[in-house]
């Protein structure tokens, strides 16, 4: 093609493009696009693998970007469950430096823009969480710093403790507790000294005869032990004596 003709075609093409661009209603066009169908065709995992997410995210001013976006409208068009079901969450999250990312996000500003209730209603959390290996994620997160930002009192105010306790099977819980071991740890002396239990015991088992009998038996047992100890030394006894007959030892060992 000769130069004048080529120049003419170029000018016509520019003009046509100019006219088309000015005539095109981008929003109307975007409304016609089925984002979900488009998203389905994309191999998101493969695409994400190629991207250095950390480097990319480091270059983005997330806060200003998030402030400009109408997150609710954008999220309203996306079938979150379908999208999330195709993402290998564990692989994706393993590549993200969670602490650095969270440190740069103004969570309060971000959350103030999001209709969390509407968003959460649309997400099948059970299915999502079933696919996430929470342990490595939690190991990498600085939970103390995160919890430091949270108003625990406000959080706990929202918890219906009574309802929570009603759902706890206390019987099963107590079945797992070794009550005997717990009782062994009780300082009985201190308990009696600091409570009225001593008065109750004294009232129910008092009496000079009982007191004398206890004292006599105690002294006799002390003497028994003394004789036993010296007999053992004189006889060079190496193995300890059995403390009680077999049947009584079994009974003391308990069920």
């Amino acid at each position, binding site marked *: 093609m000769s130069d004048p003709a080529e120049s003419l075609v170029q000018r016509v093409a520019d003009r046509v493009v100019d006219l088309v661009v000015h005539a095109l209603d981008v929003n109307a066009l975007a409304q016609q696009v089925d984002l979900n169908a488009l998203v389905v065709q994309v191999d998101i995992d493969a695409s994400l693998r190629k991207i250095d997410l950390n480097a990319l995210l480091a270059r983005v001013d997330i806060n200003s970007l998030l402030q400009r976006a109408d997150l609710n409208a954008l999220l309203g068009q996306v079938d979150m469950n379908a999208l999330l079901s195709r993402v290998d969450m564990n692989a994706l999250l393993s590549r993200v430096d969670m602490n650095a990312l969270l440190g740069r996000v103004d969570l309060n500003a971000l959350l103030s823009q999001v209709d969390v209730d509407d968003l959460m209603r649309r997400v099948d959390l059970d299915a999502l969480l079933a696919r996430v290996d929470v342990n490595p994620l939690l190991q990498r997160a600085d939970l103390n710093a995160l919890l430091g930002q949270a108003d625990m009192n406000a959080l706990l105010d929202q918890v219906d403790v009574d309802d929570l306790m009603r759902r706890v099977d206390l019987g099963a819980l107590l079945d797992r507790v070794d009550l005997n071991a717990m009782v062994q740890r009780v*300082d*009985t*002396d*201190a308990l*009696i*000294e600091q409570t009225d*239990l*001593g*008065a*109750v*015991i*004294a009232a129910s*088992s*008092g009496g000079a005869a*009982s*007191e004398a*009998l*206890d*004292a*006599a*038996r*105690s002294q*006799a*047992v*002390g*003497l*028994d*032990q*003394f*004789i*036993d*100890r010296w*007999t053992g030394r004189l*006889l060079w006894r190496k193995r300890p*004596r*059995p*403390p*009680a*007959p*077999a*049947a*009584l*030892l079994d*009974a*003391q060992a308990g069920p």
Partner: protein
Amino acid sequence: MSARTRDAGWVSWQGHYAGSASRFLAYVIDLLVSSGLFALGLAAASLVAQVVTGHSVNWNRTNIVVAVIYVAWQFFYFGYSWAASGRTFGMAALGVRVVRADGKGLDPWRGVLRALVFPLSFLLCGLGFLGIVVQREHRALHDLIAGSAVIYAWDARAARLRFLARETEAGARGRPQPEVVITQDG
């Protein structure tokens, strides 16, 4: 050492083999009680005989008949007590009782047998009792023959609680109390 300073090692001696001192003291009490009862019975019988015959009667244990009755009474006192409940009065006072060697309750016939062979331990110059001190299960000769053993049948832990309770009560009233100390290591 004060009982208050010991907060560990307290055990209930219930079921453990009884030692020589407890058993000896129990026997002394039994001997006093059985002999006292026999003396009372003898005095009563003498009185009745004196009233019936009109003559002065003075029976004592030097009389061969009385001695035989005394020995029979001793057999009855110990045999019946062991067969019926596994313990005599003295044993109950000292908190010990007779059981089978394996720890189960004593059969009545074993109680009687134990009473019958009990004198053997005396007749061998008292050597039969040596087992209480040196034998691993504190069993004397008559225990070995009758298949029995003697154990503590009182709860030292309960006694300890009673002692503490009394001490607390006395502390509240400001009066001193004797100490009762039993620990696992004696």
